[in-house]
């Protein structure tokens, strides 16, 4: 008798557990980290982002209500066609539920459309174009870590304030560079400055000396680098070699990651001002997170992109847990927007209707070699840009998801 009812109870309970699990598609929550695994953006995203996603999964217990969580990754080679093909295969065949990271704006914009059409979830950490929460915004996409508007608003505004009122741009010739140049130009003009010209260079350029000579002959006070990763490193290096700085012109690195500063070395990078949403040595929580990360990443500290992947995956799993369902991408994103975010990386934050994750941004200056006390001790804080001012105001948004009253 007694034994029989225990058996019944177990059967009923396991049936209930089964029913709860059945809500998760294919009995597994699959996270696909897509980024540059081998090229000029591999250090700022790459395997580090995969590691960050795995850390977030582990910190969420490895399972959501008994459903295991799996992380896979792929290399989009910074090509939009490769990226959208991977996205299609992932969503159609491999049953991936959420795609994260995706640096290189042109690829991110392509993946954005694929994910929207398949009603899954897209959490962007690596890409910068503000269009992801502007004209191309999607109910399936959240733009997590930073964007071009916030960079322009941080570094661009500060440089103009310090007297840099004439600009010449070196712009990476694709969606990201164009968007960044447009955003910074707007800030420069709004602050009373002037844009004297721009030169568009191909992505992944080895030698910048030609372009720098053109920038030099423009006589602009500021040479704005609207590029990223390896391109920024090469441009800064060539500028110091060709005496651009000694000639009185200043460089503004509009998107500089800590991995770039590391590759440049402090003697070359010192004095650069840059805007980031994350720095490993900001407070005790970021230090603790970064220590765990660096220990598993050959001693390399996380970039803001990698930290953003951690934060995004963590919040995604919370939303799926509370929804008990991962099938409907729009519903998951809606849930994510509804719940406040909280993690060791960005602290407390929110997600807006247009898909913009909101947190403070920080304007840093790269230390002089003498000021650096330990490995990766690279930044000093110039100013914190509060969350409310860090991103493009919602009432200026071109996003159709934003209801206007």
């Amino acid at each position: 008798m007694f034994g029989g009812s225990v058996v019944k109870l177990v059967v009923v309970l396991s049936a209930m557990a089964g029913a709860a699990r059945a809500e998760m598609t294919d009995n597994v929550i699959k996270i696909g980290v897509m980024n540059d695994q081998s090229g000029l953006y591999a250090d700022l995203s790459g395997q580090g982002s995969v590691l960050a996603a795995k850390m977030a999964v582990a910190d969420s217990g490895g399972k959501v209500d008994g459903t295991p969580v799996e992380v896979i990754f792929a290399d989009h080679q910074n090509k939009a066609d490769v990226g959208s093909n991977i996205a299609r295969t992932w969503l159609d065949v491999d049953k991936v539920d959420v795609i994260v990271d995706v640096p290189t704006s042109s690829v991110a914009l392509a993946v954005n459309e694929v994910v929207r059409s398949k009603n899954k979830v897209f959490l962007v950490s690596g890409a910068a174009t503000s269009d992801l929460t502007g004209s191309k915004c999607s109910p399936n996409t959240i733009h997590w870590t930073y964007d071009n508007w916030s960079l322009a608003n941080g570094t661009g505004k500060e440089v103009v304030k310090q007297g840099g009122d004439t600009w010449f741009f070196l712009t990476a010739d694709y969606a990201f560079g164009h968007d960044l140049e447009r955003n910074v130009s707007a800030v420069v003009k709004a602050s009373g400055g002037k844009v004297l010209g721009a030169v568009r260079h191909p992505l992944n350029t080895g030698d910048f000396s030609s372009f720098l000579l053109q920038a030099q002959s423009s006589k602009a006070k500021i040479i704005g680098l609207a590029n990223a990763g390896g391109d920024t490193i090469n441009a800064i290096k060539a500028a110091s070699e060709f005496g651009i700085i000694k000639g009185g012109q200043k460089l503004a690195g509009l998107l500089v990651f800590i991995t770039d500063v590391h590759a440049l070395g402090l003697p070359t990078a010192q004095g650069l001002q840059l805007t980031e949403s994350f720095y490993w040595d900001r407070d005790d929580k970021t230090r603790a997170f970064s220590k765990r990360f660096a220990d598993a990443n050959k001693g390399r500290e996380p970039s803001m992109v990698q930290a953003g992947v951690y934060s995004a995956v963590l919040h995604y799993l919370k939303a799926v847990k509370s929804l008990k369902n991962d099938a409907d991408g729009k519903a998951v994103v809606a849930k994510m927007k509804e719940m406040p975010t909280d993690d060791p990386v960005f602290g407390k934050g929110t997600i807006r209707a247009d898909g913009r994750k909101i947190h403070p941004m920080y304007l840093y200056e790269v230390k002089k070699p003498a000021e650096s006390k330990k490995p990766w001790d690279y930044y000093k804080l110039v100013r914190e840009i509060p969350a409310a001012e860090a991103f493009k105001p919602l009432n200026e948004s071109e996003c159709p998801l934003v209801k206007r009253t």
Partner: protein
Amino acid sequence: MITIFGVPLQALMGQLLIGLINGAFYALLSLGLAIIFGLLNVINFAHGALYTTGAFVAWFLLQYAGIGYWGALVISPLAVGLLGVVIERTMLKRLYGLDPLYGLLLTFGLALIIQGLFLNRFGSSGEPYAIPEALSGGLNLGFMFLPNYRAWVIGFSVVVCLATWFVIERTRLGSYLRAGTENPVLVQAFGINVPRMITLTYAFGVALAALAGVLAAPIYRVNPLMGSDLIIVVFAVVVIGGMGSIIGSIVTGFALGVVEGLTKVFYPEASNVVIFVIMAIVLLVKSAGLFGRTAQ
């Protein structure tokens, strides 16, 4: 102010000079490729990876042995040359007599392995390598600021290129080399050790790549992708110059550097395509390349 197509003459002079600097790298690398192809009939796809290795050896020497740039300029090509001997003796040797495609596949595989090892250890953005003290600073030429180091790169590579050309085309050793590739059996009959000569030729070719790697280290920083970024362009240079033509690869290397430099002024968006456009045109008009001899 004099302008040409809206670009001030002074700016143009600067761009020409920069083109020559980049051309120096193309010339050094394509020279090594041309020698290896001309004498061994091997399309050495590992060339870019060995150029990267040259740069990394320089970085290792500085980091772990305290040996600076000048030491590296000698040691790194020797070390990579030795690696070349190993590659030739243990692997390439087995492929002679087969279709050149096999050599290409082997060296391509090697390139991927070497690049992968460096990527795994160092990541894609690489390590900084400082310009040597004696060559830091620069010269104001009036129309541009010429860093001393870049001037050194042009001068040094011109000397190396011309010396190599002289040895192969104008000395007895060079004539043995050329004869050995025409008819190895006959040359061997004269008492010359042809297999050893071929090994040393390969070693010399890849040592040139390593030399270019050391020269490039202070300019581009030492990174695993520096070779693969360059190698395709360098192959185009070799094809345009004429496969296996020594003088062709030198002249084409410098000339295409200049053409690329000018493209960066007039239509920067096309600067990474222009060399391939030229390659296509040259192949259509003169399929053996500008300096190549058509096969009889």
